[in-house]
């Protein structure tokens, strides 16, 4: 590290002012020590009307003067009391006015049960909850038959091997796409965020598994990073979070659409089992066949039923028909007889009339009919020319005759 300040290095050089040396000390401290987390017990807590907090952090062996500016203090849920163990994140500096080393606290967390990690976790969880990222309504269903499954994990880790094994056994129709990322270490959160963003750009992915195999709390810590959790929540496709072993819940578990206890379990949840599906198809085929058979049997039944009913109605029809036929025949016979009788009576009457009109009857009463030789009936005196030969028809025969005088 190079300092631009005029450092006194020996006699003969200009002595530094107090301001200069304290400013140098401040620059050295600020440059050399990056922001850090410090755990300690609060003592001498004082809240100024300006809103700034002043307190000392101490443990059995040392103490550290702390300040927390108003803006940062306002974000803390409730002021800490003396004696409380807290985690603070901040940076060292020098308060030049007082010539004191000072820790400028930006974040302060009470030590939850479970210590520092639990406190950090709780803080991040609260932030995510505030933004609605933990809402159950955000959870999306997984596609039942995924074709492309993305896996954000380390290429060398057990998680990738486990997932390959499970998917290969259950659902070899799929494509597994590894999106490699560092899963532990300081740069793991940023790398996981990068990998998640990259996976989001591959449009063919149906579902994403993010996780790693088991490890210590520190090893798994990247999955409790708020940035990583937010990247998971932002995923376009459903995410299954699978971090470590069964017991601990990670932040990514909370925001993911589904939580799996292990990477193998995630793979089981991500894909269906082909064998099971084939058995389901067999079952469906059986049901289909049975349903169709029943349907056909029902039709046969209906046909038989219809045939029986038809036969019965035919019989009834024939019965009724022959009844009506008999009836009709009888009625017809009656009618014929009546008609015949009527006709006979009529015929008798007509015969009587005919008899009365017969010319023979007239001749019998003494009349005669005169006809000329041609057979024409001679009715008037003018028909009888003098000397005309004619015949007279009387009842029992004809008489030849001639008009007196000559023609």
């Amino acid at each position, binding site marked *: 590290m190079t300092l631009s300040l005029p450092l006194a290095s020996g006699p003969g050089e200009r002595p530094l002012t107090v301001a200069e040396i304290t400013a140098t000390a401040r620059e050295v401290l600020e440059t050399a020590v990056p922001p850090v987390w410090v755990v300690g017990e609060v003592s001498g807590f004082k809240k100024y009307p300006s809103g700034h907090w002043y307190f000392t952090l101490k443990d059995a062996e040392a103490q550290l003067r702390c300040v927390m500016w108003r803006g940062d203090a306002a974000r803390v849920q409730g002021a800490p009391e003396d004696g409380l163990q807290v985690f603070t994140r901040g940076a060292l500096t020098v308060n030049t006015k007082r010539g004191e080393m000072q820790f400028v606290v930006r974040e302060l967390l009470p030590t939850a049960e479970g210590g520092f990690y639990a406190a950090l976790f709780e803080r991040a969880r609260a932030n995510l909850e505030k933004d609605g990222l933990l809402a159950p309504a955000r959870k999306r269903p997984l596609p039942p038959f*995924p074709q492309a499954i993305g896996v954000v994990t380390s290429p060398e880790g057990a998680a990738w091997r486990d997932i390959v094994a499970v998917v290969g056994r259950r659902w070899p*129709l799929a*494509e597994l796409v590894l999106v490699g990322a560092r899963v532990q270490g300081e740069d793991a959160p940023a790398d996981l965020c990068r990998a998640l963003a990259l996976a989001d750009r591959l449009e063919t992915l149906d579902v994403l598994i993010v996780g790693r195999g088991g490890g210590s709390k520190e090893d798994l810590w990247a999955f409790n990073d708020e940035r990583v959790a937010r990247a998971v929540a932002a995923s376009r496709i459903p995410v299954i979070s699978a971090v470590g072993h069964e017991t601990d819940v990670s932040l990514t578990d909370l925001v993911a659409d589904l939580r799996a206890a292990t990477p193998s379990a995630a793979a089981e949840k991500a894909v269906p089992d082909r064998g099971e599906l084939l058995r389901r198809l067999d079952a469906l085929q059986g049901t*289909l066949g049975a349903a169709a058979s029943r349907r056909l049997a029902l*039709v046969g039944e209906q046909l038989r039923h219809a045939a029986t009913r038809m036969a019965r109605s035919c019989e009834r029809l024939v019965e009724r028909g022959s009844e009506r036929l008999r009836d009709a025949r009888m009625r017809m016979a009656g009618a014929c007889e009546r008609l015949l009788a009527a006709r006979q009576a009529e015929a008798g009457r007509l015969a009587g009339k005919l008899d009365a009109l017969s010319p023979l009857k007239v001749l019998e009463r003494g009349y005669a009919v005169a006809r000329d030789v041609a057979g024409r009936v001679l009715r008037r005196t003018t028909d009888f020319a003098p000397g005309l030969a004619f015949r007279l028809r009387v009842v029992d025969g004809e008489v030849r005759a001639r008009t007196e005088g000559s023609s």
Partner: protein
Amino acid sequence: MSGPSLQEDLARLETIVRALEANDLDLDGALALFEEGVERLRTARERLGAAELRLRQLREAADGSVQVDDFRG
């Protein structure tokens, strides 16, 4: 294989079976459904047929585009 199609086939098969079991179709309709069911079963089995898991790896190429290669572990 096609995921959505497999899903469609299965959903359709369930519908067909239910319709056939309901017995409220005429015979022609029922037979047509049965035939469709048999066909769907065949395609679904085909889709589930022999396949080998493909392993791929996603990278960001030098030009910033998304690149998918075969995974070589």
